[in-house]
């Protein structure tokens, strides 16, 4: 099977190369000018951009436990529609992904589905209870590259220390959800004048940065790497910036909603539960700090924190509704609309934040770049086409997103995984 992509703009993190690209079987076989080869399929990509397959380091697939909200198939379909060819699914499932049996099952199921690679993130502690480490070695052998108790931080600093130390043995990455949930005090939105005015229980921004600071200190003390997920506040960014300048092996990511929305959008939605997310949406200062940090490389990647919830859950009053938005299908367009079109990142920046950096940080090889010999995981995009987010177009089983009705720029036209077209607009 041969696919020839003609006249494409091939985007890597450092350059955009106008060329043809030939896929043979599951590999990028050749990149060059005017490749004349009899291909089974030719994609004319003039004025289009071709990216390395996107990588999402933070997805919730709700499997096992809430397959009514998302399952491996619907999550895979949503992901390839969004241009992702590798996603990392978080272990806050029921039961938690804390054993190699479950991790193996997820990987085998994803291979059977065959749309993209799903990498389960193993729980750091058994049942995510924060009490006893999981079997990192067994989980690693089954295919877990990283570990997280996402949904909460590892509360006990001694347990986090042990996890960071133990992870050295398997060269695994620890991914921390940074939140001191004692000071979050069951809050539903960012603490600010608005939360006080409306009497809504609220989370102060320091709930995140307290743990960011603690985690960085522990990682620095042990000289280990650590990855901080869904960073949302200016205060956290300041701490991370300083740590990076001191050589601490800390990496981090943010999510599109933190540079697209603020707490003001929560108010103008009349406290619609579809605007409730954790960490909560911040203020303009946070939003600007995140954009600046993305530009300067303090924030390494962008993940979706794709968090499907059923309609009945999101129908609950704002204070009682669960946290989270779906994001796989929108991430690229949100980044393009809110960062590239507004000048924070250029088109190469998308390749860096959604492919190259995640690959490097998460320990993936032979991906994250468009290179001869690499597996043919590619995305063809139209960066200028406008579209409006509509509930009926969402593939994910859950439709909870604050972006319904929003006009965005940038459309995924093809997603190619191991040389097969797995999504076509």
């Amino acid at each position, binding site marked *: 099977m041969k696919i020839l992509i003609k006249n494409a703009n091939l985007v890597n993190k450092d350059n955009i190369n106008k060329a043809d690209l030939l896929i043979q079987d599951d590999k990028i076989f050749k990149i060059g000018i005017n490749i004349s080869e009899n291909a089974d399929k030719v994609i004319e990509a003039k004025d289009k951009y071709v990216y390395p397959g996107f990588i999402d380091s933070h997805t919730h697939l709700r499997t096992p436990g809430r397959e009514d909200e998302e399952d491996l198939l619907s999550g895979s379909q949503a992901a390839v529609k969004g241009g992702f060819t590798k996603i990392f699914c978080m272990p806050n499932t029921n039961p938690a992904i804390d054993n190699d049996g479950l991790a193996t099952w997820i990987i085998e199921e994803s291979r059977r589905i065959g749309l993209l690679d799903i990498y389960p993130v193993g729980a750091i502690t058994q049942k995510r209870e924060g009490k006893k480490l999981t079997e990192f070695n067994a989980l690693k052998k089954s295919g877990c590259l990283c570990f997280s108790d996402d949904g909460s931080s590892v509360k006990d600093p001694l347990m986090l220390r042990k996890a960071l130390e133990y992870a050295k043995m398997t060269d695994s990455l620890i991914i921390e959800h940074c939140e001191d949930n004692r000071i979050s005090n069951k809050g539903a939105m960012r603490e600010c004048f608005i939360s006080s005015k409306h009497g*809504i229980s609220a989370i102060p921004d320091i709930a995140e940065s307290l743990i960011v600071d603690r985690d960085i200190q522990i990682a620095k003390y042990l000289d280990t790497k650590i990855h901080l997920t869904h960073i949302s506040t200016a205060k956290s960014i300041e701490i991370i910036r300083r740590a990076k300048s001191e050589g601490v092996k800390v990496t981090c990511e943010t999510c599109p909603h933190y540079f697209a929305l603020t707490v003001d959008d929560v108010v103008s939605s009349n406290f619609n539960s579809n605007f409730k997310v954790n960490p909560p949406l911040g203020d303009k200062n946070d939003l600007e700090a995140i954009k600046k940090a993305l530009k300067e490389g303090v924030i390494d990647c962008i993940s979706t924190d794709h968090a499907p919830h059923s309609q009945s859950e999101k129908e609950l009053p704002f*204070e009682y509704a669960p946290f989270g938005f779906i994001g796989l299908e929108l991430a690229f367009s949100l980044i393009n609309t809110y960062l590239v079109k507004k000048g924070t990142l250029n088109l190469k920046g998308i390749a860096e934040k959604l492919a190259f950096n995640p690959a490097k940080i998460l320990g993936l090889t032979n991906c994250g770049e468009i290179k001869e010999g690499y597996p043919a995981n590619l995305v063809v995009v139209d960066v200028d086409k406008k579209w409006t987010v509509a509930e009926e177009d969402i593939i994910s089983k859950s439709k909870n997103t604050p972006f319904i009705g929003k006009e965005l720029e940038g459309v995924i036209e093809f997603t190619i995984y191991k040389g097969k077209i797995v999504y076509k607009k």
Partner: protein
Amino acid sequence: MKEWQKKHILGIKDLNKEELETVFTLANSFKEISERDVKKVPALRGKTIINLFFENSTRTRTSFELAAKRLSADVVNFSSSNSSLTKGETIIDTIKTLEAYHPNIMIVRLNASACLQSFINYTQASIINAGDGRNEHPTQALLDMFTVKEAKGSLENLNVLIVGDIGNSRVARSNIFGFQRYASKITVCGPPTFIPYEFNEMGVSVSYNLDDVIGQADVIIMLRIQSERQDDLFLPSLREYTDKFSLTPERLKKVKKDCLIMHPGPVNWDVEISSAIKNKIHPLILKQAENGLAVRMAVLYLIGTKKREI
């Protein structure tokens, strides 16, 4: 009197001064009805009102129920535990179900802040907020203000002091929005753990010392200490609270002679207010309850005589 425009009453923050005055004028005339032997007028005959309470309440619910009955409306009570807000049938399902009976008004109380706005699309009925979490309790503020207006003749330029658990209090928030329409100077007073973050941005002064501020007040609203909402973290003991913030005979000596001391009830005597001064304080609190009925009749009348939009 200008024609009433609002379909719902979700909070005092949505009402302007003119609308507040309309309520007070009407409440004044409804007071007289309750003093008659036959306490019923046919104003809302044939209208259906549902008291939809997801949180325990006897006083507010009774007051609304009586108000509805005195206006000849058909009123039914639908009470449900708070747990039904978090699982199974959602409150939106409940509202849709009740909508099938085509009510004119739903009076809603629940333990979640600021979510009523999201319900209005699911019913043709008007929604009246009878207390939503820590957000607002508009009819309580209306009756408080009405009581002050009745006693003082005017609501303009008063020093209003609100004492207690401000953060958890929907009564405080509604009163703040209401009294601010009359250029009142509002002070909230309580331990710092009871004062919400950046609360001075509400345009109020904050005090942690009742003795400092009690002497300037024209109106004092003593809030109920809601022990069911207290986490140990926020208050070491009732003894400590009482020492600093209870209205005692000694503190009563410091208040202005014409100062009005109110309480939304029920009073925890010897916590918010010393029972030694019950005889002096209680009559106005009972007057608030009486006025509550008149104010709720006024609100139901204004909302209920609007045509049900089809």
